[in-house]
């Protein structure tokens, strides 16, 4: 379901009627239908932050679409036009706020949300250094969307040039006209989703722990070739989750196989007598840790024998990239 967000009822009126939306609660500001929710948050970023967060948490829409009127702070952005917005910035207490949020729109128009209405030309010029369009809510929509990991879109109808000529009363009188134009524009849009392999697309013929499943998910996303991965699973050669993870890692980095064999050759003689060899898995540290339980003289004799044959320079060579490929 899409959640359509508006600041003012005037902007939303055509949508409520055309999409046949019904009020879903006592506030009179939240509506729903077969495919849409609609929220009228009121003007300003604070109300938007609070109300949008609440309704997203309660109704879990997949996409947020912000629509409404906005002011131009750039001569080339003319009143009467509708623009998809790319990035939302924020201006408060006389300064721009660092954090920004980018919509899923294809566009080159940016919008700066202002804490206050822009009734001063000097301020409009300052805002125009960062974006072409100014509004009162979009940045808050972006903040909520990012926090809750939902894609968001925005479309702004330019009502006037922001500054001392802004006529709020005139804008209210033209609300129906603006709403209708936004509706027509909105109905022409389509919204897209990513197509990544989900682990649920894979049937694992063996048990995998939570950590292993996460690792498999990460590796399958990297490879992103479902046919290849399913072929490996269906080959019948995969013994368990760790084996599957190794196979996936080898696809991503074929050198891994050679590196693993080299390490196994190096440590096998010591492991065969019961010693445990620990090597930094990132190979950043030039050191080996050796642990062994000693419960008889035989253990000591075996260890001495193997250590006589073990050359640290073999490990150093590995550390310096000398592997057979």
């Amino acid at each position, binding site marked *: 379901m899409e959640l359509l967000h508006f600041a003012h009822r005037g902007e939303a009126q055509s949508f409520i009627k055309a999409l046949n939306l019904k009020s879903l609660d006592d506030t009179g500001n939240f509506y729903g239908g077969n495919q849409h929710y609609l929220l009228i948050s009121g003007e300003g970023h604070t109300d938007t932050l609070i109300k949008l967060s609440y309704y997203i948490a309660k109704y879990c829409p997949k996409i947020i679409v912000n629509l409404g009127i906005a002011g131009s702070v750039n001569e080339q952005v003319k009143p009467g036009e509708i623009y998809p917005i790319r990035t939302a910035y924020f201006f408060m207490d006389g300064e721009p706020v660092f954090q920004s949020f980018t919509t899923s729109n294809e566009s080159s128009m940016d919008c700066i949300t202002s804490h206050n209405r822009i009734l001063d030309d000097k301020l409009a010029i300052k805002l125009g250094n960062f974006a072409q369009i100014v509004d009162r809510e979009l940045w808050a929509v972006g903040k909520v969307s990012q926090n809750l990991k939902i894609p968001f879109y925005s479309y702004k109808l330019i009502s006037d040039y922001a500054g001392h000529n802004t006529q709020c009363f005139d804008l209210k009188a033209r609300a129906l006209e603006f709403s209708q134009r936004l509706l027509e524009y909105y109905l022409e849009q389509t919204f897209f989703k990513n197509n990544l392999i989900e682990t649920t697309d894979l049937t694992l013929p063996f048990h995998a722990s939570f950590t292993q499943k996460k690792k498999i998910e990460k590796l399958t996303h990297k490879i992103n070739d479902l046919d290849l991965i399913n072929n490996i699973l269906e080959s019948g050669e995969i013994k368990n989750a760790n084996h599957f993870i190794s196979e996936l890692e080898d696809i991503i980095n074929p*050198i891994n196989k050679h590196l693993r064999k080299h390490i196994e050759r190096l440590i096998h003689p010591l492991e065969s007598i019961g010693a445990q060899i620990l090597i930094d898995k990132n190979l950043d540290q030039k050191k080996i840790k050796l642990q062994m339980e000693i419960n008889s003289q035989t253990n000591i004799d075996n260890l001495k024998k193997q250590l006589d044959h073990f050359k640290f320079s073999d490990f150093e060579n590995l550390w310096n990239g000398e592997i057979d490929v």
Partner: protein
Amino acid sequence: MFNTVFIENNVQNNPHTSAILGKIKFKESKLIENYSDVWGRVKKPYLQKRDTLNLFIAEKKGDLVKLAPDAYGLGKENHYYYVHAYNCIYECQYCYLQGYFNTPDLVLFVNHDEIINEMEILISKDENTDAWFHAGEYSDSLALSHITGELGLYFELFKKYPKNKLELRTKSVNIKPLLALKPSENIYISFTLSSFEGAKAFDYKCPTITHRLNAIKQLVNHGYNIGIHLDPIIYHEGFENEYSELLSRLGEILGDEKLGYISIGVVRFTKDVHKEVLNNYPDSPMHRQDFIKSFDGKIRYNRTMRMWIMNTVKKLCLNQGFSEKKIYLCMEE
């Protein structure tokens, strides 16, 4: 080419400013007090450089010339870099600039006389009689040089101090300004090169390797010393053959006598840059790489892998006839 040009009030009348404005196309210009009042104040997404790139013309303040990190260049001399610009017009998927600055907008600093003055002060110190000075740390040093027009000033400085060296790092083929100047033994033009296939995959908006090789050939014929940066190398099956081909083509146009140095480095990112790369290029083959978080917090291959890749390419350089003493591993511990 540029959306908005922001000009600092105090460089309005700088001759470099008017020269730049006379050579570029832009939609509008604005006067501001200080470039940092606007540039980098908000997080502007990196990829917006494709269609709304702004330019700032400003005066560089603070440290104009800085000491370079260890393993920056060949040899035991001191290495410094000077800052003539921020950001780059090219777009390479692995570029660290996308996570280093908060915006892709370009800044061109026009107070070259002050930068040069600071370089002279450093050169006058005993420990810097043979120091290197590098351009291209935060920007390509040649790509816009036909617009900025400052190269001649730096060439004059290094004529005065023949023991010191100047390196101009680039991926550009904009060599006309260089061909109009007289080369000097202590000036090196260094080109960053990937394999032909690597450049197609990752150097999104850059001159092709073929064009860069042609530029190198012209500069060699004109008498310039050349440096080569084989950095970053990104592993994939067949990379050895690809670098062998690259070095073979390079060997045809650049002999060991005109080669200053070859640096070899593998791809690496800070955490911030890596996050930006994932975000900006979600379909990049780079995301299929087997990276780890390394000893210095950087995202890179494991040590064995890094050394193997670099040693493999080093062997290819030696096979091509380049001297071992001219080859160094870049930014390795």
